[in-house]
């Protein structure tokens, strides 16, 4: 495969042509905030709005999960403008997240916590108003619970579930602020054909989908477990 040379944060990097900047950076030990990127997915979801970087010659910050590498490209992952956007996106997520880490199964392996320390944002940030949902928690499956109030709508579980079984048990419903990951007709997951493969729990970056026995999912799950990892 053809490779291109580029620079990320001053580091010279070679990456396969067509690869997105986000993966090129991650593969070279440079972390860019991200929640919704799925390496195997054919199209970037581009929903979390955390992975902004600045690229020389561009007007404004771009999302690195959608931006293909290019020969001679110069990328800055820590520019003030991209960092400002990432912080705002994170603070928006936190403002609509019931932050209760002490009682959360995801404590210490939660991506939100990691992003907070990286971006210098307080978990209980007060910049925005607290606007949380109060939806019922689904404990219908024997080994995991789903708390939609903690979901950041990254789409990873939905993608994973659909990828594995064709027709997904999990999907999105409603629009705007009410958008939610749920099952067909809002039935409990256990009654919706869930085969308890546990993969969605593995990929959930936050405490929305967690094992009942306290087992941790895969931390830093940007890779999303995949049998045949491609670019």
């Amino acid at each position, binding site marked *: 495969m053809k490779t291109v040379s580029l620079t990320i944060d001053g580091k010279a990097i070679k990456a396969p042509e067509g690869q997105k900047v986000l993966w090129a950076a991650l593969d070279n030990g440079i972390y860019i905030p991200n929640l919704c990127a799925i390496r195997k997915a054919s*199209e*970037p*979801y*581009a*929903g*979390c*709005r*955390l992975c*902004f970087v600045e690229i020389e010659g561009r007007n*404004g*910050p771009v*999302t690195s999960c*959608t931006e293909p590498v290019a020969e001679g490209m110069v990328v800055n992952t820590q520019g003030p403008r991209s960092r*400002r*956007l990432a912080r*705002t*996106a994170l603070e*928006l*997520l936190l*403002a*609509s997240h019931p932050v209760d880490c002490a009682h959360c199964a995801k404590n210490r392996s939660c991506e939100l916590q990691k992003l907070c320390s990286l971006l210098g944002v307080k978990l209980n940030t007060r*910049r*925005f*108003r607290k*606007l949380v949902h109060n939806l019922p928690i689904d404990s219908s499956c024997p080994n995991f619970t789903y708390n939609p109030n903690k979901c*950041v*709508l990254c789409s990873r579980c939905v993608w994973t579930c659909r990828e594995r079984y064709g027709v997904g048990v999990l999907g*999105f419903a*409603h*629009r*705007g*602020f*009410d*958008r939610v990951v749920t099952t067909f007709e809002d039935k409990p997951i256990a009654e919706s054909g869930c085969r308890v493969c546990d993969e969605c729990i593995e990929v959930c970056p936050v405490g929305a989908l967690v094992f009942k026995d306290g087992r941790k999912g895969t931390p830093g799950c940007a890779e999303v477990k995949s049998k045949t990892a491609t670019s």
Partner: protein
Amino acid sequence: MTVIASQDIASTFQNIRDHALSRWQELWDGSKPIIMVSAATCGRSAGALEVLEAVKDELSRGQQDVQVMEVGCMGHCYAEPLVIIKKPGNPTVVYGYITPEKARRLVKDYIQGEDISPEFALGALEENELIPSIYDLPRFKHEKYILLENIGRIDPEDIDQYIAKGGYEALANALQMQPEDIIEEVRKSGLRGRGGAGFSTAQKWEVCRSSPGKIKYLICNADEGDPGAFMDRAILESDPHSVIEGMLIAAYTIGARHGYIYVRAEYPLAVHRAEIALEQAEGLGLLGKNILGSSFSFDIKPFQGSGAFVCGEETALIASLEGKPGLPHHRPPFPATSGLNGKPTVINNVKTLAYVPPIIRNGADWFASIGTEKSKGTAVFALAGKVVNTGLTEVPMGTTLRQIIFDVGGGIPKGRRFKAVQIGGPSGGCLPESALDMPIDFDSLKEVGAMMGSGGMVVLDEDDCMVEVARYFLEFTQRESCGKCTMCRLGTRQMLSMLEDFTCGRGQMQDLETLKELAEDVRIGSLCGLGRTSPNPVLTTMRYFRDEYKAHIEEKRCPALMCHDLIAYYILPEKCERSCDACVGTCTVEAISSNKQRVKVIDQAKCVKCGTCLTACPLQYNAVIKLSPPDKVPAAKG
């Protein structure tokens, strides 16, 4: 696609046109009077169908042979229902504000009698001695009709009338041209997309045409989700063939075999008219296989969208056409390289496509001679709000807001003062008086923080609160956000919540700073245009009307006396007429009582601020007023 048998195309079309022309002449220059009723959706909601019924009923009582025609929207929505009468030997006259009774009188007095009824006339379409010409109205000094040319003048359900007016001639010409030459012609015309962003149409076509692959698609975007905009609907309902012809030329140019008209499901009449038009075009060999005997084949299917605002965004629209949830995705890839089913797809707005036939017919130079340096042609606006003549208007790019609002629109009703104009709907901006003399085009609007958008133009006067206006539009966008991306889903919600607090008097000055920062981030950081343009109403009102925001926050005062929580109703004792009780009985919560001097007093604790008393108080007393902040109400004595 090779150009074959030019003469064949030309002569095939000539036959079609001859037939159409002779039918038109028979109709228009014949001895029968013609009564046209403007019955597009806007006319119908004003009662056009009842008028049509009355006309037919009254005619059925007489013996006369009269041609009755349903035509589309003439743009003069303020004067709907409209009736146009052409009586042989007399000028063609447009009558406005027609009720069924007036329609009967017109039939009796004018069709059956000789009274041309000037009292109902808006004006005549030709110079004459009896009725002043409609073109003497001040609006026609500024208006220039390209898209609205046929609208309200022809029967949209009769293809021959469109053809008689020059329709499909551009198609016949185009089919004898090389696609590259058509692109060149469109490029020279300077045509930019009317779907909002003003992207070069030629460039879009060129990219799609030169993208690899045999299968290409053309989509006409008639989603028109912007509340208050209805020009695309009016064009489809009143002159559907102009859009179809534009689609045909575009499809021929890019090499598309299949096309779709994506119409919102709330536009049943537009869908119906489009279907009839498609059928008639196909019947004449202007659509379908081997069009006009050429090797070019193209079909068009109407598709009814779900009506979500975001489905007007091109990537969401395509997803919805593919049967998937109507969610936007990141661009690039742009549809022109990878669109419907992953194939190169041109998606153009209704108006963009409808400009194409006149451009081909009259030449690029003609089109480029209208408008400003970078925005060619005309702009169509739907005037609404606090303006006398609501309705559609078409003016050259570069016309000023003052000319549109005051000359075309007839100014602000009831002698109120102009305050602002919101252009481009929820994605657009709110411009103050100082912008009135700015020639408007794609670029000038962008510079001042607004955008052409779909062309909605809402005029606001001194009684409109700018904070409330921003809140209103943001409530719309946050409701219509698809929720896919964080910035828009949560950002618009947070902005809305701050604006709600301002209008309720709960805001803090520091919120203003947070709001501005967040608005900037949502503008840059959202995935699609819905999120990216959603802060425009907030940013422009904050920029041009900062004092109003400050008044709401620091003084809990709404200067326009509009925000419910920040006002109180008060009866001025010196103005209250003691012998009058008009307000007392109208108050549904019995908050008004008479004091010892029989002066009426509102019990603020009971008052629900419905405003009934203000309306009830007779004009000559005018004793009920609104006060803001509410604590300005003097303490009740005794």
